[in-house]
């Protein structure tokens, strides 16, 4: 058993992990990235449509600003987000795009002059400004007032991770591939790294670090139908949960993407709808305007997914031997647009469906897509409970998404949080009191504990089949903790998952090799995934309201009076079969944007008692500062800039500022 010392241990080689490591490296700290797979193969790569940043280069984005992006994001999240963090995010997003532009991301660019676009099913000619020619272009996405999503055709995540991973190579940051963190090493409320298993040799190594950063992505594989890659099993969140100290925030907030191809669940980007694609039912009828006359196909994802399922429930789904589905129609975009701006979509349809999207409709149905919840952190990205543990990206609940994430905000979060949290990790490592002072005996205890767990699986007499348990879990989650949730189903789900968890303690493996052993991996991951699934199901059961992606048929209204708070789940004892839930209230009196109607979806929420007061306050402040610029107004409503690392403060220039 070995021990490797480093300043920063980053667990996860996707965009957030890479960007944090680069930030730490540039601050002069040694960083090691652990990754299950080669960094460039991380699930960040699958982000197709783009990244939101209020550059306002295209004409349809004119007038965009951090303020509009802020409001869209808060509304999209149904007021579950931490508004200060949203502010930090929206102000850094343009900087992130510009940094990536300099690092080589081939962002699609604006071409001056007339061009034809499809808006609301109609061909419209828009004219791009001369001044914008050659700047980063934006496309339309759901839940946004302006065209704000910067993109690289429909391979945005691919282009971003290629550029950032190459920068990590330039900075000589080692990526230890085919390595998996099994447990976080912590002592007296301080995290010191992780016990890591080499997936090829099976060897355990302790990585001891000043700062440990989780960037392991989402937990889509808790569900049967998901757009997520097969490695998105939520293990990062699970090992944080298993510390018993760190908490997970809002795990019940799970997003379903409207357009997973049916039945495989592979994603086709929201860019399809952003660029003008339509949703149609079995009769070929475009149904979204019937439900959402204002935003139509481009309401937020939670709303569109629910409307689609609602429509299928009314018998309007197209029938197939795999079940019902709806159609995504992008034929109206034309061959040139599809072959240039939606290449990946074209390839996916071609290879997996044998469908030519230029001529045919694409069968789609909502599929699990994103985990809004994750390791709860403060604005610096550090766990409030476990010092030295940081998290960023989908693995984290930094909480800029609240209960529903807008399309284009996740890939943006990865790099933005990577930049911001990376700086704070730098600060953390700079402070002498954070030097590593853990006795090696403690480290050895962790190593031995994990070795014993693995040995128990390999040599024990367990009889349960991990694959069967996992399939059962995925079925329960999909059927009972899905888009529409009911108290009764959730109770059953929690019961059944608890039973599975108990059974999972008795998993046996047939193939008993200590080295590369896919069955062993499935076994220990399934044990952890069940705990995570319970945080989702139990949190969903407890939350007796509907908010964002969390929709309770028995409590269809958003209830700010009782539920304007964040769920925090922890796992106190290894022998427990349920997480411990506590809640963290959101303070309406400090909100820049007090809770209200989102602008789409239902309009029947129950008000928080402080909302009216805060609304008046906000109005009064705005009236008082009517002659001041938007920055002064914002500063008065909710100062946040002090929360940002000094290097990332400052305004973002736009072409309208130049004239």
């Amino acid at each position: 058993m070995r021990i490797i010392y480093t300043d920063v241990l980053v667990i996860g080689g996707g965009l957030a992990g890479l960007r944090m490591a680069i930030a730490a490296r540039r601050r002069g700290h040694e960083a090691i990235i652990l990754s299950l797979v080669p960094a460039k193969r991380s699930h960040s790569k699958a982000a197709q449509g783009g990244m939101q940043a209020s550059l306002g280069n295209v004409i349809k984005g004119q007038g965009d600003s951090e303020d509009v992006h802020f409001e869209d994001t808060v509304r999209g999240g149904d007021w579950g987000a931490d508004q200060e963090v949203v502010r930090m995010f929206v102000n850094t997003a343009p900087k992130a795009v510009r940094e990536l532009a300099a690092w080589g991301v081939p962002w699609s660019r604006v071409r001056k002059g007339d061009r034809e676009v499809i808006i609301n099913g109609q061909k419209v000619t828009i004219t791009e400004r001369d001044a914008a020619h050659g700047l980063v272009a934006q496309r339309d996405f759901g839940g946004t007032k302006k065209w704000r999503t910067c993109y690289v055709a429909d391979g945005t995540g691919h282009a971003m991770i290629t550029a950032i991973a190459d920068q990590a190579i330039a900075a000589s940051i080692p990526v230890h591939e085919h390595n998996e963190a099994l447990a976080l090493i912590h002592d007296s409320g301080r995290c010191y790294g992780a016990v890591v298993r080499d997936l090829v040799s099976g060897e355990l190594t302790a990585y001891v670090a000043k700062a440990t950063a989780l960037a392991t992505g989402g937990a889509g594989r808790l569900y049967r139908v998901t757009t997520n890659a097969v490695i998105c099993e939520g293990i990062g969140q699970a090992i944080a949960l298993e510390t018993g100290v760190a908490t997970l925030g809002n795990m019940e907030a799970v997003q379903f993407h409207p357009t997973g191809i049916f039945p495989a669940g592979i994603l086709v980007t929201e860019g399809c709808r952003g660029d003008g694609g339509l949703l149609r039912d079995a009769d070929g009828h475009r149904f979204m305007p019937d439900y959402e006359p204002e935003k139509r196909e481009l309401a937020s994802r939670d709303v569109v997914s629910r409307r689609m399922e609602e429509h299928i429930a009314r018998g309007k789904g197209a029938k197939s031997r795999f079940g019902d589905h709806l159609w995504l129609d992008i034929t109206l975009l034309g061959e040139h647009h599809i072959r240039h701006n939606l290449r990946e979509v074209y390839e996916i349809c071609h290879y997996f469906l044998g469908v030519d999207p230029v001529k045919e409709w694409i069968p789609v149905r909502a599929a699990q897509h994103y985990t809004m919840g994750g390791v709860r952190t403060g604005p610096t990205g550090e766990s409030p409970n476990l010092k030295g543990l940081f998290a960023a990206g989908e693995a984290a609940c930094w909480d800029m998404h609240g209960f529903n994430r807008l399309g284009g905000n996740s890939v943006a979060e990865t790099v933005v949080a990577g930049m911001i949290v990376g700086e704070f990790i730098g600060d953390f490592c700079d402070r002498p009191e954070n030097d590593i002072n853990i006795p090696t005996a403690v480290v050895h205890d962790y190593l031995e504990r994990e070795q014993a767990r693995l040995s128990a699986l390999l040599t024990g007499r367990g009889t349960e089949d991990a694959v069967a348990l996992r399939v059962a879990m995925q079925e329960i989650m999909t059927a009972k903790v899905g888009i529409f949730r009911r108290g009764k189903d959730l109770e059953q789900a929690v019961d059944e998952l608890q039973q599975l968890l108990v059974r999972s303690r008795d998993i046996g493996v047939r193939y008993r090799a200590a080295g590369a052993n896919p069955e062993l991996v499935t076994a220990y991951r399934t044990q952890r995934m069940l705990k995570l699934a319970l945080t989702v199901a139990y949190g969903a059961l407890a939350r007796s309201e509907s908010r964002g992606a969390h929709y309770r048929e028995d409590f269809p209204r958003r209830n700010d009076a009782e539920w304007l708070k964040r769920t925090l789940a922890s796992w106190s004892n290894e022998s427990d079969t349920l997480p411990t839930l506590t809640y963290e209230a959101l303070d309406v009196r400090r909100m820049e944007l007090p809770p209200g109607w989102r602008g789409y979806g239902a309009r029947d929420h129950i008000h928080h008692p402080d909302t009216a007061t805060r609304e008046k306050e906000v109005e009064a402040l705005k009236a008082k500062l009517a002659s001041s610029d938007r920055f002064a107004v914002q500063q008065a409503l909710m100062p946040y800039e002090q929360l940002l690392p000094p290097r990332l403060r400052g305004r973002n220039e736009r072409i309208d500022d130049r004239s």
Partner: protein
Amino acid sequence: MKGSDQLADVAAATRRAPRDRLPALLDVVQSISGLALVMFLGMHLLLDAAILIGPSAADAVARAFEGQYLFGTAHPWIVSLAALALLTLIVVHAVLALRKLPHSTREYVAFRHHLRGINHGDTRLWWWQVVTGMALFFLIAPHLYIVITQPETIGASASAHRVVAERAWVLYAILLPVVLLHAAAGTYRMVVKWGWPKLSRVRLRPWVWGIAGAYCVLGLAALVAYTILGLRLTE
């Protein structure tokens, strides 16, 4: 944000060793020598076909290359010299091409294994280029030896004699398709390699094989003509 964004870039820019031009030179020379040989071959086969017009045409061509029309008398050593120059070109081309061949049993086995598995036309073609290239070492040597040492025996009747009585037809009948296959494969590769002329492989292939085929027919016809002439002479 002000950042020191050029961690490794500066280092990369400063460690510049003097450039080794040799690899580029060798690569270009390999192609150019091949091109020259292909052009020579094309001309050679065309002129050989003079026999199809008649023995006197073939003799006229032979005399022309011996400088008869330039100096008034024939100097066969000119042909010898030209053949020596050609041999040099062939040696240069072959030596450069040798770099590309498998250098060891490991490489040979790896490539053969690859060739069988991948089932890929252009890869197979390369292997045939290699095989014909090796064969040409042995086929061209006697051909050139005669040209260099007995330049005066080139001409309608002398050549016809050689083809039939000395049984050189066996050599030529093998040499012709082999050299054409090698030249065609080489030309095809050269176009693909340098991307000029800009043709897709699908459009390039009929050109290359069409021309090679036409030359093959032409060459065989000339060989048949010499054979007929040679048979008459022996009678």
